[in-house]
């Protein structure tokens, strides 16, 4: 009887829903002891005079799950581009922990340092199989010679199998990723992110094109990732955001309009005006 209760208790622990979610891979240079894992201060970026980001300031704490919402063109994707080194801002600061200046690092160095990203438009390696896609994302040495002589260890194979099961693509394991449906590509990309095991995950519109059930599953996954990882989610789907959000940041015209719990944000008159007002 007590065994059953123990099992039930084990089962109810939300952070253990996915057994393979472990501590994030070690990021030796990362120093998040002083609180935030991500510092964005006064970041400005203009495209041909149009300010996509306008003196944006944002802090994300270690282990936090943060949702970013905002109307189309608010600068959400541009913010992720700045964090991952794709776009160099005109002004401002971007630090990962208190030691790494993201603006001085190249894209691959940022990724190696422990920031993983899921793109708005699902991108997978079309000509590689599902399994090969996951293998490439796996957290291993990214050096040239290491890649030439790399072979998968037993533990890594287990991890891969677990992720494969979670994203529900076991049947397609050896199919080319290009032949997957939109939703399956989304899952494959999420799976790749899990394989990469980054300290900070940036997830741009993860549930676009997913069914209700899949959306729920994604919500569960993101919630259980938080704590051991920090997660920043950009999403338009309000129900989805409500189901996972603890703290929400509203972006508008490149800067922060409001920040707080979902209820606070929803009751903020300025937010209702620019964003939620459009929906109702």
């Amino acid at each position, binding site marked *: 009887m007590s065994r059953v209760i123990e099992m039930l208790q084990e089962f109810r622990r939300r952070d253990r829903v996915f057994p393979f979610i472990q501590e994030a891979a070690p990021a030796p240079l990362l120093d998040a002891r002083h609180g935030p894992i991500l510092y964005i201060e006064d970041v400005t970026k203009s495209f041909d005079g149009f300010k996509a980001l306008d003196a944006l300031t944002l802090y994300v704490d270690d282990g936090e799950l943060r949702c970013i919402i905002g109307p189309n063109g608010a600068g959400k994707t541009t913010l992720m581009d700045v964090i991952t080194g794709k776009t160099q801002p005109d002004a401002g600061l971007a630090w990962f922990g208190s030691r790494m200046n993201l603006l001085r690092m190249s894209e691959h160095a940022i990724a190696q340092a422990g920031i993983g990203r899921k793109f708005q438009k699902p991108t997978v390696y079309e000509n*590689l199989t599902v399994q090969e896609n996951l293998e490439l994302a796996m957290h291993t040495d990214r050096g040239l010679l290491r890649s030439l002589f790399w072979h998968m260890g037993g533990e890594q194979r287990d991890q891969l199998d677990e992720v494969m099961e979670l994203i529900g693509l076991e049947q397609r394991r050896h199919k080319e990723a290009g032949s997957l449906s939109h939703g399956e590509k989304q899952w494959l990309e999420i799976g790749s992110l899990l394989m990469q095991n980054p300290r900070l995950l940036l997830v741009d519109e993860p549930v676009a094109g997913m069914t209700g059930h899949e959306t729920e599953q994604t919500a569960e996954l993101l919630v259980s990732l938080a704590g051991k990882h920090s997660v920043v989610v950009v999403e338009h789907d309000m129900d989805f955001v409500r189901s996972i959000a603890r703290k929400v940041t509203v972006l508008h015209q490149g800067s922060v309009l409001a920040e707080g719990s979902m209820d606070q944000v929803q009751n903020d008159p300025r937010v209702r005006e620019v964003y939620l007002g459009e929906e109702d």
Partner: protein
Amino acid sequence: MRQLFITRIATLHSPLGWLLFALLVAAVLVLMPVLNRVVPPDSFFHVPNWALTLMGRFLCLALVALALDLIWGYTGILSLGHGAFFALGGYVMGMHLTRNNFADGGVPNFIQFLGQSDWPWFWVPFQWFWFTALMILLVPGVLAFVFGFFAFRSRVRGVYFAIITQALTFAMMLLFFRTETGVGGDTGLTNFRTLLGFSVRDADTRLALYLISGLALILSYLLCRFIVTSKLGRVLTAIRDSESRVRFTGYNPLRYKLFVWTLSAMLCGLAGALYVPQTGVINPGEMAPAQSIEMAVWVALGGRGTLVGALAGAGIVNGMKSWVTAVYPDLWLYFLGALFVFVTLFLPRGVVGLFDRFFKRGGQA
């Protein structure tokens, strides 16, 4: 560790693949020499010396196609300048052979025309074979590395990259055309006599050159196969599919691209060096832009991203070329153009793709 390496090598091919590989190796390294040497000259199956040398040259060109497939087929970087690397390897070998011609003193005419009675400084070390052997790989390798570093670092891609490689080979051609450059001007280097003490016109030497070319091709093929079946190979394909994603996963594409690009150029240099003693001449014509385009046609016709496709393509196109240029010498370029259009329109995956489809259909029926 050693055990691991052996199992890794074994997985380069499926058992059937290894069988085919062994048969082809046997055909190149055993059957052809036997048909040339053992079978009597009046037999239908006899392979004359000229045919053996022709095949030796084809093996070198197949090596070029292999190198090009690595960079174009797998990594998605189209080079229309591989002729330059091929010719550089050829020139390095040609310079050594020319030095051998004047081992007893004296200098060739083209150097006398420059008003010099002694070898220019850069000719001096080519008297040593070991130095030449090193330069065969280093000269194309270093050029490719420097060129690739700047091009890839500035993220030059696609058509733009292809165009600047054309410019590279064209510029090299103009440089080598000049008599002042000191490597024979428009006539190039020719009339070779000896290599390592053997006469290059001798039938035995020819057979040896053929065998070395075959061996070079086989080993290079295995090397390429090792690369494309490794995780490194998958990174290359990933770069072809979505380079930015590769970057955001933490790989530095610059290193990977530079590695295959340089390796590819070095294999081309090796091919050129083996080609020259079998043709007996190297001149700047090898660097003509059209030559490099032709190389791309070999790979496109055979099928990109398969390695074997490149080999087949080089064989097919060069076989046709030998035949067409013998019968209708003026028509070859038109023929090549038509072939290119045909392949682009009807065989996007090349001859190998055609086979694949045929067998898949056969399997379903």
